[in-house]
């Protein structure tokens, strides 16, 4: 993997996609899940992809993380073209370049919280002592100190998602992908995920988030609306107060 150590020129997008296509062939008519998507995500951006279920947004995220291969188009990670990568290469890159969190956490159920987080670090070749230090720091940061020896099934959904977040970030990947990370959490858990994603983003983490939840999406600074396999809109959210009445209008109590 000679290209891994080559210096990445400045301003290279963390992720770039051109003409991505993906069709699912199942029973019935072929489903065009992703129909020609061009996307560029720069270092430090927090991008949310929203849209109705079945719009293809999860498929898009799977293509970006190499969990599925496109039928057409190209994808670059840190300027490196991924088109020819086989599964083994993707598995390596998912440990190093990309962290992923899923709706249903996907933790290893018979491993402790500590082992779930340390595993990708060890697989990436980190010395055990360092893997442990990384794990301790992340779990403390995510408010999970004292839960190291628990099994995932003993934790609440919100706690499991925090463990999954620690696992995704343990190797400091340049890109974090999140697929409906609050999709199986209650309102409180959603707020928690939102707060944590914002916090990591403020520290410079690049994030691509897929969600149908507009509240979660509003934590991002760019929102892509996905319909029927295509980007219908790509909007930068402003920090500036919205025009006219804005939030005070929304919150107003009637006279």
């Amino acid at each position, binding site marked *: 993997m000679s290209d891994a150590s080559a210096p990445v020129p400045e301003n290279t997008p963390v992720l770039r996609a051109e003409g991505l296509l993906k069709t699912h062939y199942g029973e019935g008519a072929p489903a065009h899940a992703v129909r020609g998507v061009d996307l560029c995500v720069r270092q430090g951006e927090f991008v949310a992809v929203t849209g109705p279920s079945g719009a293809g947004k999860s498929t898009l995220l799977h293509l970006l993380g190499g969990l599925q291969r496109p039928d057409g188009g190209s994808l670059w990670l840190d300027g490196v073209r991924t088109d020819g990568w086989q599964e083994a290469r993707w598995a390596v890159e998912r440990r190093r370049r990309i962290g992923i969190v899923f709706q249903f956490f996907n933790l290893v159920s018979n491993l402790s919280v500590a082992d779930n987080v340390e595993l990708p670090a060890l697989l990436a070749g980190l010395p055990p002592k360092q893997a442990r230090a990384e794990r301790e720091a992340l779990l403390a940061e995510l408010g999970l100190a004292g839960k190291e020896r628990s099994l995932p099934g003993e934790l609440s959904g919100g706690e499991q998602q925090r463990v999954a977040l620690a696992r995704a970030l343990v190797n400091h990947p340049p890109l974090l992908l999140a697929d409906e990370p609050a999709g199986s959490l209650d309102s409180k858990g959603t707020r928690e995920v939102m*707060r944590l994603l914002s916090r990591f983003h403020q520290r410079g983490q690049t994030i691509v988030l897929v969600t149908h939840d*507009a509240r979660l999406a*509003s934590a991002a600074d760019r929102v892509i609306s996905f319909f029927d396999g295509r980007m*219908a809109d790509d909007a930068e*959210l402003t920090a500036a107060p919205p025009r006219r009445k804005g939030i005070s209008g*929304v919150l*107003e109590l009637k*006279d």
Partner: protein
Amino acid sequence: MRLPLLALLARGPAHGYELKQDLEQLLGSAYPQPNVGQIYVTLGRLEKSGLIEGEDVEQSSRPNKKVYHLTDAGREALHAWFEETEDEPRVRDEFFMKLALAPQSGLADQIALINRQRRQYLNTMRSLSKLATAENRDNRIAHLLIEGAMLHLQADLDWLERCQEELEELE
């Protein structure tokens, strides 16, 4: 603001500035700060309609202040207020009319209308999230107010999504 002021006076007499502070404390930064002039005007109206009564209290070094208390009629009005349920949030708004009339007029594109409206809602949603982060964690009432606003916006965004799904299918 008439009934909220009456409700604050149900605890006991208070003057205008106290009521302003009570409202601010209760609703936190989520609620646009009530302007004290507006409060005095409202208190004046409430007094005129016999729901409260004011009494001048002398202060040594400052002008008199007026301390208000609830009348029996005021208490009655409050009971009626709590008894009554409120109207549903609006279901038909100006945006809906634009969307409905865009094709006939030939002057606007429905999808473009939806996209623009969504951008505004998302920006407002973002401001609300920021407000929630900035608000004191222990002020539950303020957080519930913000969360309510967010859930309403969420519903509006979901509805925009439905509109877009339906209208894109026709294309």
